[in-house]
């Protein structure tokens, strides 16, 4: 097995006196797409925030490429790890200016202007994410979905090895959901980009992830780690979400498909 790019070792963390995640361990291998799933409040976002050192661990540690996260200078970390948050600030700047901010970690000391390479990269990822059409509009004047796309372009411009996504498709229509997750899958296959993403939509999580991590709100532990077929079972969904579901196979991809077991379907 290839070496782990990210290693979460017996991590416990939370906010103030409230611990959300208890004793979580996970190894992310380079080139993987890992989906983090779980019910609301199960600690999916907290887990991402602890990886980016926004939430400090109470116990345990997180190693990125063999080094603990706090020991890596912030600038260096931003060149290797990019984050797309749940919400994107409707800042008073154009989409292009916003995306170019992703090149800040590469700025040298006393460098104030973007290089030609920075601009070319921004243009490339704007084209890939379909944001080139709105590049001169203010972030505050575009839709939530377009802002999400711009945020993904900004993260890609950082040229990271590890991409952390917190519900990247929450504001997108079905076309853009498929487009963005398809793009992430393509970057993963072509460039070997490692992706760790929090996804609420279990079908999308199953479709686009190599492995899934199912967090359990009841005890803050990981309920199960494994392939989508291993994790997305009727029993696991019932145990974690408390909702009866029916699992079928996607006739095209063969990946598990989840249907609510409402009265009509039972």
């Amino acid at each position: 097995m290839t070496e782990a790019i990210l290693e979460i070792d017996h991590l416990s963390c939370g906010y103030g006196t409230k611990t959300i995640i208890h004793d979580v361990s996970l190894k992310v291998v380079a080139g993987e797409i890992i989906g983090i799933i779980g019910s609301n409040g199960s600690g999916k976002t907290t887990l991402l925030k602890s990886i980016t050192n926004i939430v400090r661990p109470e116990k345990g540690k997180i190693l990125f490429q063999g080094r603990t996260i706090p020991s890596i200078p912030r600038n260096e970390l931003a060149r290797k790890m990019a984050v797309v948050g749940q919400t994107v600030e409707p800042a008073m700047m154009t989409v292009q200016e916003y995306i170019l901010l992703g090149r800040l970690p590469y700025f040298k000391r006393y460098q104030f202007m973007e290089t030609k390479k920075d601009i070319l990269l921004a243009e490339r990822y704007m084209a890939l994410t379909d944001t080139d059409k709105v590049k001169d509009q203010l972030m505050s004047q575009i839709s939530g979905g377009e802002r999400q796309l711009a945020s993904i372009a900004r993260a890609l411009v950082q040229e990271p090895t590890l991409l952390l996504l917190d519900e990247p498709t929450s504001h997108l229509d079905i076309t853009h959901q498929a487009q963005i997750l398809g793009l992430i899958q393509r970057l993963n296959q072509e460039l070997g980009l490692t992706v760790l993403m929090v996804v609420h939509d279990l079908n999308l999580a199953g479709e686009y992830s190599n492995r899934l991590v199912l967090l359990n709100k009841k005890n803050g532990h990981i309920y199960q780690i494994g392939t989508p077929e291993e994790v997305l079972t009727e029993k696991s969904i019932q145990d974690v979400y408390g909702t009866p579901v029916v699992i079928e196979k996607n006739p095209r991809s063969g990946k598990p498909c989840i249907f609510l077991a409402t009265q009509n379907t039972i």
Partner: protein
Amino acid sequence: MKNRKAKNWFLMLLILSLFLLMACILAVCTGSAGIPVQKIPDILINGEGTVEHSILFSIRLPRLLLALSIGGALSLAGVLLQGMFRNPLVEPYTLGISGGASLGVCLNIIFKWYITLGVIAYPLSGFLGALLVIAIVYSISIKKGDLKTNNMLLIGVMISFVSSSVVMLLMAVSHSEDLHSIIFWIMGSLDEPNMILVRISIIVSIAGLILSYFFCLDLNALALGEEEAIHLGIQTERTKRFLFIIASILTGMSVSVAGIIMFVGLIVPHFMRMTAGPDHRILLISSFISGAAFLTVCDVISRTIVAPLELPVGVITGIIGGVIFIYVLSRKQVSL
């Protein structure tokens, strides 16, 4: 894109520099004794010993230099604080610095420290008052090494209220001549500047501009929120600390030298954000230049509109700045 942006910025700076130059010429030529523009080179080269030469060098130039440095410093402090707090309503006086300085000057007037210390007692007491407030706001807002901006804003506003109340209390119990001095100082003036203070204010404001420019990209990233700025590799804690100290010193210096000149630090950054854009690479310089020019023009108006009497410059900045700002905002339908 890069070239277009650089061209726009260059054009913007050129226009503002011309505006500044015109403001400077206006300030030098206008007054109770008018000096024609065409005579200025001659006065500068051959005019030593003449009345015009002494008016120019002893009265108008020191006052102009003070207006330029104070106007620039207050606008710059406004941009830094608005950027750091991501709040368009924050201005240099929000954090209670002016309140602290007013209290210091009030105490100086009431306890007559100026008798032993001389004229320097006014700026010194004002600066010490401002420093005390800066230290209080900073030490209360810092928790486990993190500077909590929301706490800082609230504490600043509270300290501002407390110090204003104490100033009012002191005014209520003071003699009428002391009361007049306090009111006159609070309204702000660029009158009769001491050359040492003029030099200090020039050095502080230019140093403030240079130092803050190193944080222009950090400020751009902070516009997205602290978390996102951290994800972009910004040392947000270090940046906030530096910016707070720079903005505080700029404000403290301005208040202690020229009293409370309202609105410059609020209106100019807004106006420049509307015209030059929100990018701090241009916003810092353009606000500095236009703040300097704005205060210079306001000062000319304050000393000529009811000549030979002089109005407090803070009154003019408030009226003119406020009216222009409301007009521009309603015309452009710009949201803050």
